[in-house]
């Protein structure tokens, strides 16, 4: 049994805790949060050891691994403390606000030989995995265009900052929250861009952070990319993420439900004939042993548990790929700043 602890009993922390709690190869032994109202009920009802200070938990709970689900600004400290003490570490996305910190966490995990994963769950959705597989296999020919988007209704009215998600210093805002998912997905499917050509961070209702992000990328080889995210769009019931990839032989449109593939005549690939093929999540997603909110949340934990058991730093969604994502996020912020000056 893998002994695990949780740092940060917020929205994502609780979700991880539930999936871990049902995992047959994991024993959740401790949880930690600065707010005791979150931990006291858990301790009382589930017998979990609870802490206010994550260092104390890491030092005393006899853990194999930790899940870090605190505000982004605190990830570096918590993750490096855990890695230094030989634990395997899963960190919520994005990894760090400063990409050089992400890189050094990645180096540290490698040096220590510990599993190191980031919660970019789109990488575990069957439709997006199929899109990546087809692109990497060359089914689309030369890719000349990729566009990624995410829309949802997180902030749909003016308000004063009440949580860390509305404070830029702690890693709040649409760039680190929504756009990070899209950047990571685009990196996953076509590889990271070489440069961010231009970007706009747009406030709509928030005071301290952007509610929308628009950016243009240039890829090695000359392909162009477009990112559009907006968490203040009330027409979306929940976060909705899409990617479109255009190549000389065809194109792919993918979201959480569908992977739609168009191939030109003469460009047939494996079971994909010319013209449109639509494949659904029902056909592309592996089942999970315990389901909460989506297979991807369980699948990413399965993948991490597997890496912990093998004690390997080399696996899907590692700090290394999340560092690439942080590098692009930082370049978007910089391009937007240059533009506004």
């Amino acid at each position, binding site marked *: 049994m893998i002994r695990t602890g949780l740092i940060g009993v917020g929205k994502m922390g609780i979700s991880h805790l539930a999936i871990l709690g049902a995992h047959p190869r994991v024993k959740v032994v401790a949880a930690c949060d600065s707010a005791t109202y979150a931990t006291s009920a858990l301790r009382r009802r589930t017998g979990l050891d609870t802490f206010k200070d994550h260092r104390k938990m890491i030092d005393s709970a006899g853990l194999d691994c930790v899940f870090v689900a605190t505000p982004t600004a605190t990830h570096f400290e918590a993750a490096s403390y855990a890695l230094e003490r030989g634990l395997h570490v899963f960190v919520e996305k994005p990894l760090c606000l400063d990409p050089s910190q992400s890189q050094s966490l990645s180096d540290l995990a490698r040096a220590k030989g510990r599993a190191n994963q980031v919660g970019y769950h789109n990488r575990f959705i069957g439709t997006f995995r199929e899109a990546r597989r087809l692109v990497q296999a060359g089914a689309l020919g030369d890719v000349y265009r990729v566009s990624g988007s995410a829309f949802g*209704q997180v902030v749909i009215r003016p308000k004063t900052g009440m949580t860390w*998600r509305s404070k830029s210093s702690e890693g709040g805002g649409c760039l680190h929250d929504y756009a990070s998912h899209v950047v990571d997905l685009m990196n996953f499917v076509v590889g990271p861009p070489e440069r961010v050509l231009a970007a706009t961070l747009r406030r709509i209702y928030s005071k301290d952070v952007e509610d929308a992000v628009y950016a243009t990328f240039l890829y090695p080889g000359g392909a162009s990319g477009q990112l559009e995210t907006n968490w203040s769009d009330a027409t979306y019931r929940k976060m909705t993420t899409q990617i479109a990839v255009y190549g000389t032989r065809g194109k792919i449109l993918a979201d959480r*439900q569908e992977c739609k593939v168009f191939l030109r005549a003469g460009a047939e690939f494996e079971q994909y004939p010319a013209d449109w093929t639509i494949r659904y999540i029902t056909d592309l997603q592996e089942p999970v042993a315990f389901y909460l909110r989506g297979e991807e949340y369980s699948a990413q934990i399965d993948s991490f548990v597997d890496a912990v058991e093998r004690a390997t730093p080399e696996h899907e969604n590692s700090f290394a790929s999340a560092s690439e994502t942080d590098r692009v996020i930082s370049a978007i912020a910089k391009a937007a700043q240059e533009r506004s000056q």
Partner: protein
Amino acid sequence: MMHRILFGDNQFFGVNHMSEEKARAQAMQFRDTASIMGVLDYAYDVGIKVFMCTTYDRVGDIAEIVRDNPVRYPDFEFYPCMPYAHKYANSVGEVGALETIRRFAPGGIVETLIRGAVSAATQDLEKLMQLLVDAEMKRFAGVRTPVIFVQNVVTDLLLGLGLHDMLAAFDRYIREKYLAEAGFITMNLPLLVDTLERVGVRNPIVCANINKIGFRMSGGIEAYRDVLRSGRCRPIAMSILASGAIPPREAIEWVCGLEGLESVVFGASSPRNILQTKQLIERAWGVEAAPSVG
């Protein structure tokens, strides 16, 4: 006795597990309550008396129409499913957990939680659940709600967190306060039924994805068959078409052939699909089809 054919609500509220585009088109089609009522009326008139619905704000308008027209809807029943989780999740993202509780559960519960006396914390959790249930149930005042469900995201969260007493507490509260039966929607049926039995909830009403291809049937299709066959719960099948991955006739014949299945819930937006689905289910169950309405 629970009704055997229940009408679902996903099609009205932009929920489509197969296609985002279709979900958006449906959200536009059903932007006003009258267009939803048109479909519900048809379903009701062909003999589907139960509307199993998430507790969206707009469901309150539908409940009001039913309440105000007892002659038109003498035996219309709601099976409310709570909560509408995205409402809470979006709010937690926006204003935080405590402020969200303040928003939806009036009466100083947050202050009690913050004071955080450990001995009080467990009772507070139960109290909080009761306040949230009451807030959700307000919109159903004066209409029939013989079965009240907790949505899968909450059921399965409590299941995973090990807060199993809360599932029993929900069951108790629904019986005592609303004189109704509690229902549990889940994506992990075998695990849920075992767990409910351990906390003393016997023969519960449960609702889960049950379909021929095993889509979102965690624990596997055979474990589901076993639970159904065992008679330890009263199961309702949802997502019987696996979001459209299985042709209707094939899907329905398979589901209705399962030993131990009590009811089926399905959603549709056209009269033709409603009637066709209902007739397929009745035929598969060997029930005499109800006459169609003109």
